[in-house]
């Protein structure tokens, strides 16, 4: 049995454990009394906050139960926010505004005021366009009102495929859909003006196939600006999710096995040397965007995660070293499953990591970034996309996401323009800061009977998918048989058919359409030819300047890859003098190119 089969068993076993605890709480009087005592204690210690209208509300809402069995069901089955199995949240408090005046009902009835430190904003906006300096300008624009600078970087097509801007046939694609990065010099320009070593800064880079190379360039750029001592301080995330690329997004450059090997090389390095870095973001987003059902999204993402955990453990990296550095990335659309998809995922992950991999508390957390669904946005009557995204935002925060990106309404047309990005960012601010839904009370919308029903149905369906993957021989075997790919494609096909036959209403498209389908006046972000040429010229100059050093570095890299040793330290040297395309090309000579699956 692979680890995934064991995960299924561990969840089943845990569910049985919960039922046993419920029964025990009802039959074993002492146990029941203790639970009730703990419950009442916890409730008594919850601080009370006041809304602007003066309404007192507890900072944590708990179900109104006083029967030991039901208390056991909550404590063991869901857990308080920040407690195993983390159904409600990874942390005790999230999104809550700092306390101005708190009252807490301690036993002596005294009021106490407790200062709570201001948390990081959960808003993280994805951006990348044209050349590094253009994206840099956008980053500064986006973060100008924020206490903390959490940047999220989109790369252009050539970069995502590990190609240089001067590669054959890519002119026209340079800086389209994301930023063009060829060299360490571009990387320096990209984050210019930001303090990369600051605890208030983090960079996220959405790239997988060439992730180890881009990561090496990021480190090289940080060292150029702040010296070698900055490395252990760097905070951020690189996506580096090979499985989902092969299953859905198709941006893979080496065959699967060496891709996974290079990834593990990077994880081994960063989890050892850069304790604040997330070297992988296990992503369901692109699986969802490629057309999967929500359950498929969660099931494939979590099973990919467990497969990575198995791989890193096999390399000899301790689970409590890499476990806390894994992060997740989910898509949030409008289907009913999204009411609880991430909640259930967090619970399955925690149980599997604890009971199958022996992970400690920090390595049990499924810390997740959510992005609202791009696929749910459509071109027809595109302003409706604001409402779609707003609804998805509510669902995302109901699932206690750790960070969130809200899509811009003009996304079906182009890289979002500033006007619509502003509205998207403000959508989050309105929800979190203006509205009272999330800022006063944890669990404000948790635990409704409907949500519980969704949780049960979704968990059952995810475990069933796990069993199917297990029957196929585990995640890697299933990937090679293109199981996940064809399941996703079938789901996508069905979704399209439902739109065409009207069983899936899309307002403005197949329902309430008023025929007014004019292309909106969106300002298109296109990279002018002159800028594209500038990138090519800069790259050629870099290559010429570093030609000798690059050859030596590439030889060393190839030799290291040939010996199947950890390539990452050598990549760090190569990133100083080689372009992305040079590194890709040389490594492909050693390990081959990815053979696409259709």
């Amino acid at each position, binding site marked *: 049995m692979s680890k995934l089969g064991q995960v299924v068993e561990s969840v089943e076993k845990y569910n049985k454990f919960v039922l046993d605890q419920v029964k025990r709480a009802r039959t074993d009087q002492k146990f029941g009394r203790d639970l009730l005592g703990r419950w009442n204690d916890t409730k008594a210690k919850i601080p009370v906050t006041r809304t602007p209208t003066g309404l007192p509300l507890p900072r944590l809402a708990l179900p109104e139960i006083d029967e030991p069995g039901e208390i056991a069901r909550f404590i063991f089955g869901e857990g308080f926010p920040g407690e195993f199995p983390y159904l409600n949240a990874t942390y005790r408090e999230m999104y809550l505004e700092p306390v101005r005046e708190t009252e807490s009902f301690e036993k002596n009835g005294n009021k106490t005021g407790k200062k709570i430190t201001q948390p990081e904003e959960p808003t993280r906006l994805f951006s990348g366009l044209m050349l590094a300096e253009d994206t840099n300008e956008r980053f500064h624009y986006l973060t100008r009102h924020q206490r903390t600078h959490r940047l999220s970087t989109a790369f252009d097509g050539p970069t995502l*495929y590990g190609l240089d801007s001067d590669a054959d046939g890519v002119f026209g694609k340079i800086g389209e859909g994301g930023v063009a990065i060829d060299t360490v010099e571009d990387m320096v320009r990209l984050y210019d003006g930001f303090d990369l070593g600051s605890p208030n800064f983090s960079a996220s880079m959405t790239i997988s196939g060439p992730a180890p190379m881009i990561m090496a360039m990021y480190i090289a750029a940080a060292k150029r600006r702040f010296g070698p001592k900055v490395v252990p301080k760097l905070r951020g995330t690189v996506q580096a999710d090979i499985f989902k690329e092969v299953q859905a997004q198709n941006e893979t450059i080496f065959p699967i096995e060496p891709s996974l090997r290079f990834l593990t090389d990077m994880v081994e390095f960063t989890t050892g040397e850069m304790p604040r870095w997330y070297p992988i973001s296990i992503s369901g987003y692109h699986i969802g965007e490629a057309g999967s059902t929500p359950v498929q999204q969660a099931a494939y993402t979590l099973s990919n995660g467990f497969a990575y955990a198995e791989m890193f453990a096999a390399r000899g990296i301790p689970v409590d070293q890499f476990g806390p550095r894994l992060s997740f990335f989910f898509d949030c659309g409008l289907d009913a499953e999204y009411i609880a998809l991430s909640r259930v995922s967090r619970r399955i992950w925690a149980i599997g990591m604890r009971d199958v991999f022996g992970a400690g508390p920090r390595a049990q957390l499924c810390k997740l970034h959510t992005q609202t669904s791009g696929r749910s946005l459509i071109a027809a009557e595109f302003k409706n996309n604001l409402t779609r995204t707003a609804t998805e935002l509510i669902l995302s925060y109901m699932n206690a996401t750790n960070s969130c990106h809200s899509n811009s309404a003009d996304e079906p047309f182009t890289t979002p323009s500033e006007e619509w990005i502003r509205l998207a960012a403000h959508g989050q601010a309105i929800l979190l800061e203006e509205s009272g839904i999330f800022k006063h009370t944890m669990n404000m919308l948790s635990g409704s009977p409907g949500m519980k029903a969704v949780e049960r149905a979704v968990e059952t369906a995810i475990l069933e998918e796990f069993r199917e993957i297990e029957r196929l021989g585990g995640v890697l075997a299933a990937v090679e048989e293109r199981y996940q790919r064809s399941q996703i494609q079938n789901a996508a096909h069905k979704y399209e058919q439902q739109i065409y036959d009207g069983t899936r209403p899309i307002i403005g498209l197949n329902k309430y359409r008023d025929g007014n389908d004019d292309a909106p006046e969106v300002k298109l972000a296109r990279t002018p030819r002159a800028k594209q040429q500038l990138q090519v010229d800069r790259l050629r100059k870099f290559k010429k300047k570093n030609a000798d050093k690059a050859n030596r570095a590439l030889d060393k890299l190839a030799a290291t890859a040939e010996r199947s040793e950890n390539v990452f330290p050598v990549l760090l040297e190569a990133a100083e003098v080689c372009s992305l395309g040079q590194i890709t090309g040389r490594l492909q000579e050693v390990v081959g190119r990815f053979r696409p699956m259709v």
Partner: protein
Amino acid sequence: MPSPIRILTAVPICDGHDSAINTINLEFIRHGIEVIYLGYHRSVADIVRAAIQEDVRAIGISSYNGGHIEFFAAVVDLLRKKGADDIKVFGGGGGTITHDDAATMRRRGVDEIFFAGTSLDDMVKFVHRRYAKPRTKRPRPKSSDQELAHELSEIEEAYGIGNRKRRTPKVKIANRKTQIANATVIGFTGPGGAGKTTLIDELVLRYLNQNPKGRIAILSHDPSVVGKGALLGDRATMINSQDDRVFMRSMATRGQAGGLSPATQDCLALLARSNFDYVIIETVGTGQEAMPFQKNGIVASTVLVMNPDYGSRLQLQKIVMLDLADIVVVNKSDLQRARTAHSEIEQRLEQNRRQQQLVDTVAKRHRDSGVDRLFELISKRIR
């Protein structure tokens, strides 16, 4: 019945958005169209080369990652340069292609751009309306590959659907028994999912590396959906075979059982005397009783590619090609069952008392030593 419309579909370079095109491909096939799918992240040169070799009526491009104005125009321009502007270009990109963009693209020679919200039905109707009429007057071919491609179309179209040749193609393949084939023809067959396509592509890579001037032709087959079109998808995975020194042609079986098309023999004969060093023919995934290559026919060597998971030893007795193949390959020999499979097949071959060879390969692995050995074996047999 007339021949089905053949079109090529692809996603541009640096673009992996294949969700839309997958759905569209399926819809085309359901409506009788033969789709040669080149896959995603494909260069202009790859697309145009494939379109000319396959001699399709049109190229459908699905682009979601920007740069579409340049990309579509580059495809049109290169077709024109190669004298192949009777191959038309259409496509779409959801909301990423604006109406203004589309107008520019049409001016630069693109036939049609579909916008977000266009129904699949409308796209199918468009292809039938625009590309169904037979091409009567072909332009003079500008290259030998193009000439060959036109001739192959003529042969295939002469057969239409069904087994009997309806009209005699102008291409002379007469008296082909006495024709001295100047290329060596190697036949690959085996059950679906055994990895034939990957294996051939790896052999092609070795051949190209070893013979800097050599040329190779591949005739690849995929099944037609009963009464409908076909998805010809081998090119998408054959990354090394997208090369100017490789002429590849994909054929649908068009209702014929046994792994080949009614027009295969004639097409193969033409390829064999068309100045290639090797011609490789790949059947569709075959069943146990299949024996696709004629005895004493034009195929000089036959390779049977097996998957280790064929079931019990008893199943081996029923596989006819195990008696006929010159070389038997157990691919995916990294699978657990591979060792057992090797020894069971070895025993089965010993019964035949012929000089059959058995090779284990892992075609998906770069520079696999088993594939190296297979390459050597084939080269030796030919010499």
